[in-house]
Each structure stands twice: as C-alpha cells, then as structure tokens.
C-alpha cells in the first residue's frame, strides 16, 4: 500500500487531468489510487465521470454503480447516475420496488453496522441490567430494545447480502449480441447496448450467461459485460 501523501498526490493529479480534459490520464491515476490504496465512493464516482466524458456510458454506469456501495446517498452520484441511465438505449424492465428495500438502499453498510452494534450492545446490556434489577422500566426498555435490535439485525443482514451477492453486470461494450449458446455460431437472440443492467448467472470460457428481463436470457461475450461487484467471480 502506498503512503497517504503519494495517494493524495496522484489523486490531485488525476483531478487536474480531468479538469484539463485528459480523461485517459485521469482514469489511469484514479485506478492507481484505488489499487494502491482503498477504493472509495468518490474515486469510483470520479472514474464514472471520466468514462462519461469519453462517451463510454456503460463504463460510466458501472463505476457509478460501484460508487453506490460506498456513498449510496450522495446527491451528486444519484444525479449523475440518473443522467447516465437516461442515455441508455435499452428500455429496462420495470420492477416493483419494495418500500423497505428502497429505504435500505439509502443507507451505507457501515451506517447499518454501527446502528446494529449500538442496538446489540443495548440489548445485551439491558439483559444484564435485568439480572440485577427487575423493574417495570427495565422491562419496557428491554421490549423496545429487543424490537429495534431485531430490525437492525435484519436490515444489516439484508444489506450485507445484497452487496455481497450482487450478481448484476453492466453492458460496457457499445453493443453486445446475446446468443442462444456460448458460441459465435449460435443463433443471435437479441442485442443489448451500453449501460444496460443484466443479471449474470455463470460463465463458460469467454461467454457469460445473462438475463436482461424475464424471458430475455442468453449468452453474451464476457468482455462485453462487467460485473458490478468487484469480487464477483462469476
């Protein structure tokens, strides 16, 4: 891992390159900072901006989606992502949003973790208190903390699962033909354009089995689709 000073130096250089319109250099520098340091939401956001300026909407959306993991409530990110999504050619399938899930999406995993930890300590704490002092107030406090503790535990678990089992992929190529099988000679079923979000299932060789919408599934070139989750080994 590089020193903080060096990371900051490269970050400043990347910003300058971006300001000067040298987006390739900016991407290079931002990538370096991510590899040598820690990935942050802002770094992914900046990478998304660079790719957007290079007219690579697919890559831009990919990095904005990655940034969402770290800064899900950042207004700049939400604005840019919405704008980038509006430029995608393919009409996404409309999904019914679950109110609780959409609320969870506004919180960062760390926020939910610390909230859960506070509730966790409070819950076990009140249990200890009740070992020595069984009063009415301690009973009601216990009931309230028990409910909040359960909610926090479930919220954190759902968020953690969403992030760690996110199998979404973004079409980064300007156009990707989806075929009936993992071979160039297979029948072309449909084509997707840069920025479309697909669900990745498995891969065979250079091909990836994807599902765009219900009933629209097939094999696409692996290079054409990048998984949102970096640790994704699919």
């Amino acid at each position: 891992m590089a020193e903080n000073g060096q990371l900051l130096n490269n970050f400043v250089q990347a910003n300058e390159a971006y300001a000067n319109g040298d987006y390739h250099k900016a991407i290079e520098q931002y990538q370096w900072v991510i590899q040598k340091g820690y990935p942050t939401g802002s770094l992914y956001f900046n990478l998304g901006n660079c790719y957007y300026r290079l007219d690579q909407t697919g890559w831009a959306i990919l990095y904005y989606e990655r940034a969402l993991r770290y800064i899900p409530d950042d207004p700049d990110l939400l604005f840019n992502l919405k704008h980038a999504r509006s430029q995608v050619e393919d009409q996404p399938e409309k999904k019914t949003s679950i109110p609780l899930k959409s609320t969870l999406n506004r919180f960062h995993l760390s926020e939910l973790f610390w909230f859960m930890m506070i509730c966790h300590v409070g819950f076990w704490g009140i249990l200890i208190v009740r070992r020595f002092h069984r009063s009415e107030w301690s009973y009601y406090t216990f009931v309230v903390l028990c409910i909040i503790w359960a909610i926090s535990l479930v919220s954190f678990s759902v968020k953690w699962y969403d992030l760690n089992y996110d199998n979404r992929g973004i079409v980064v190529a300007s156009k990707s033909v989806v075929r009936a099988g993992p071979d160039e000679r297979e029948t072309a079923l449909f084509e997707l354009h840069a920025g479309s979000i697909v669900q990745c299932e498995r891969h065979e060789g250079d091909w990836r089995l994807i599902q765009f919408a219900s009933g629209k599934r097939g094999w696409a070139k692996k290079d054409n689709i990048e998984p949102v989750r970096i640790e994704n080994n699919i």
Partner: protein
Amino acid sequence: MITNHHRILITGIMTIFAWVTVLNASTGVSLHVDRSSVTQNDAIKMTIKISGSQSAVTPRVAGLQNFRVESGGTSSNFSMVNGQVSSSIDQTYYLYPKREGKFTIGPAVVPLNGKNYRSNAVTITVSKQASDAAQQSHQPVFVTASVSDTNAYVGQTIFYTVKFYYSVSVRDLGIVLPEGQGFLLKQVSKPSEYNSNVKGKQYKVIEILHALTTEKTGTFNIPPTVMKMNVLQRQQSRHGHSLFDNFFTSTRPHSVQSQPIKLTISPLPEANQPANFTGLVGEFTINANLDPHRIEAGESTTLSLQISGTGNVQLIPDISVPDMDNIKVYSDKPEITINETSAGFTGQKNMKWALVPQKEGNYDIGPFSISFFSTEKDQYKTVSTQKMNLVVTPGKQRTSETQIKPLAQSLPPIKKEVQFFQRDILPVHDHADALQINLYDHLSLWQRWIMFIVPPFVYLLVVVFFFRKTRLKIEKLNAKKALAQFNKKLSKCQSPKNIDEILKLFYQFINQRLQRYGGTLTPDEVQKILISAGVLPEIASETSSLLNKFEAAVYTGQSDQDINVLENSIRELAKKLDKGIKS
C-alpha cells in the same frame, strides 16, 4: 289560594302572549298557487298565508272572476325556534278555471288591526285540455303526454309533460319514459298532484315535467310513455254487501300508455345571425358594473359582468375584456349557477376582472354584448351593457404587484415548471475526504465478528457469575435456617419418640449447618469437622460423646437415660453448635 307554581304558570302564559303581541310587528300576506300553467279542467290550489295573526279573516282576492272557487280549509301554524316566535294562518282555496287564457290573481287584501295588508299577485295560464285526455275520459286510469312546442329550434328548451289521471285506487306506480335516438329526457321538478275534471268526471292527476334536449334537427317521433301500476279491486262478498267488504281488496297489474308525439326541430336561421352568436337559445340579459368609477393610477377597480336568463344557460359564453392601453387586466374565474325549474333551465354567469390603470386619464369600459336566438320572437337578439367610464387620477407611484395582491390571492397561483436548458453530469469529487474510508471498512472480518460476539459473551459471564453467587447465597440462608428446621422437625415427631429418628435429624442439621453434602458421619468425623469449622474443642468433644451415646442406644436398643432428657440435651447441643460454627 294561589301557590308559587300557579304564579310561575301565569307568568309563563303572559310571556307567551307578550310574544304573540310582538308578532304583530311582522304581519304580512302572501299568495301562492301550486301551478302557474293548467288546462281548463284542472284545479289550482291557492294558499293565502297571513303571517303574524292567529285569528281567521276573509281575504279579498282580485282576479277570481274567471274561476270557480271552493274553500279548502284553514290551518294555523305556531312555531318558536331559538326564541324567535312566529305564527301564521294558511287559508286554502281550490280554483277551477272557467275559460282558457292568461289571468292574474291577486293581490289578496287582508284587513288586520285596522290596516289593509296586500299580498303579491300571480299569473296563471289556462290552456285547452289535451284532446287525448278528453278521448280517454271514459277510462278509470289513463296517461297523457305533451310537449311545450311541437315545432322548436335546435337548442331550445322543450318541456315534455306526462300527466297520469286516475279515479280508482292505485299503488306501485312506475313510469317508462320513451327512449329514442336524437333526444334526451330529464326530469326537472318534483311531480305535482292535483284534481282535475274531465268531461264531468273527477280525477286525481300526477304531473311530471321533463326537459327534452336534442342536438339534431329533423322530425322525431317520440314513442308513448308507459305507466305501470297495481289497481286495487274490491272483492264482493258472495252474500251480497258485507260489513267487511272494504277489507277484502286485491290488486290487479295494469298499464296504460300515452299517444306518441311528433316533434319537429328546425335549425336556427342563418340569416341575420350575429357574428358573436354562440348557440344561446332562450331569453337572456346582460348587466355590467364598475366599482369604483374613480381611482388613482396604480389602484384597482373591479369590473363585474352578469349574464342571466332562461334557456340553454350552460352555453353562456365567457366574455373577454379587450386589451386596453395603459390598463392591466386580471381575470377571476367565472362562476355559473344553473337551476332546473318548471319554467325551464334558468341560470346566471358571473365574471369579474381587476382593472389596474397605469396612467391617469378617462377610459371607456365596454360595452359588452351577447347574442342569442329569442324563442319568443323567433329571431336573433343582441343585448348590450352601457358604456362605462373610468376616471383615473394621478396617484402615488406604486407597483402593480401590490395592487393586484387581493385578487391574486383569490386566484390559483400559476407556477411554471423549471426546465433544463441542457443536461450534463456534475463534476468530480476533488476534496481530500474523497480518499477517506470509514471505520467499518478499516475493520477486518474477524474484528467485526469479535465486536459482535463480545456483548453476548459478557452477558454469559455475568449470568454464570450471578448464578454461582445466588447459589451460595441460598446455601447460606439454608444454613442459617438449619437450627429452626431441626427444632421444628423434632417437635413434629410423633411420641413416643424414636432415638434413631432424633439421631437422623441431628445429622441432617449438622450437614445443613455446615453446608456440606455427603453421607452419614461417624462421631469422630463430626468432631474433626466441627473443630475445622471453628467450634470450640470442648463443644466438639461433647458432641462426639453425645453422638456415641445415641449410637449405642440405637444399636443396643437400651439407654441409660430417658428419651426426653436425651432430646433436650441434643437440642441444647444444636443451639451451641449453631452459635459456634462460623459462617
């Protein structure tokens, strides 16, 4: 003897009379008829209401020479609502027209308290009886249908009147109105009921008025109206007339229908049609008002326009105020009210504008006009308002916004949606915090697990510690209770007491007091344990010798001492031991 209760009663009655006296101040006479348009054979119910009087008087009514008059009785009303007392007498008369024509009845003159009170007058139109009514007069029930005008113009309000005549008892009445393409019927008022004489036979009549609207021209055949009912029939007794004949009635379903009607709807004439004609057919008036007429520049004045009339009032147009130099015009939302009456659709449309002159001077406002087709005169008419003059004097320099505020508050605010000129992304995050990661990301997976496990682990420790502490506490308490329990058990033993039983209880006491678990001890072991528990050696020795005595007695079955003496001595010993054993 007058009691207090009587006094209160008399006072109350006098108070009521005082109120009645006050009523004289609101004395008045009004004349009302149930219908203004009848046929020659219909009866008209005329009611003369004399307010503020409790005594019946005979009114003199003008214009009754064309009617045969029958008295319908008198009713008096007295009401007290929220302390407001009112009384009136209603005198009812039935009028039977002698001839057809248009007659004015009233005013009714009533002499009261030395003064003559005059009522309003009403106009009644008596027309010839419908021919189909006369034709069907031999029937006990029949129905007639008529239209107010068989040759009408498109847009003109036509009335379709259904009259149901019956001279026998009927129930469960139902009406099936004609349906056809090109016209629509809508009931416009409540059905009215009255008596009518058709060819010397008395009938009760139910009259239902409908508005007939049509948007097409041409000749329409309106199908008959069908009335369905159950006619009550009296069942004759086999044995001639019986006292119970009236109770034995049955119903018979019956239906009657009117004659079809031919209706001709003509298009409005194109000749002389005014340029501003919008399709209004009927009779309309227009009024305008400017208040105030004289204002300072920058102030506002209100221009009101009112169009009212009878006919297709729903088509009354929105009048627009033409642009005027140096006057800003702010329009209010027009309001329209439509009433369905027996005279047709009447209505009124009110329009308002706030005029804000920017410069002083004399300004001409109006005239405003509307055009309609008059069904009375069968020609187009244009009605206009007078030209109004607005005098604007030089005023203080004010912004027009402050002047229009009162009107603007009453108007819904017009908001404009903010539109993007162009679309683009927001810039990169270039602040130093962009490289900061939060504490959660700093933590490794096992650190997070430890953080998660620590609280329940701490709880587990507390529980284990607390449990042990509690157990010790309980044992200590039990030890303290050992002597009491020993004495209690010993007392409970049935006499004659058994030495073996006493010995067993004593060993239990020793074990409980010393908080030990185990089998039966020998006297020597007891001595050692007692010494180790802090008991004085002599007491321990005494205990050992006493136990030996007891055991000898148990095993040999003989004792040199009385059992009661042994019991007392062992009680004393237990007492000493309880004190001697250190906690």
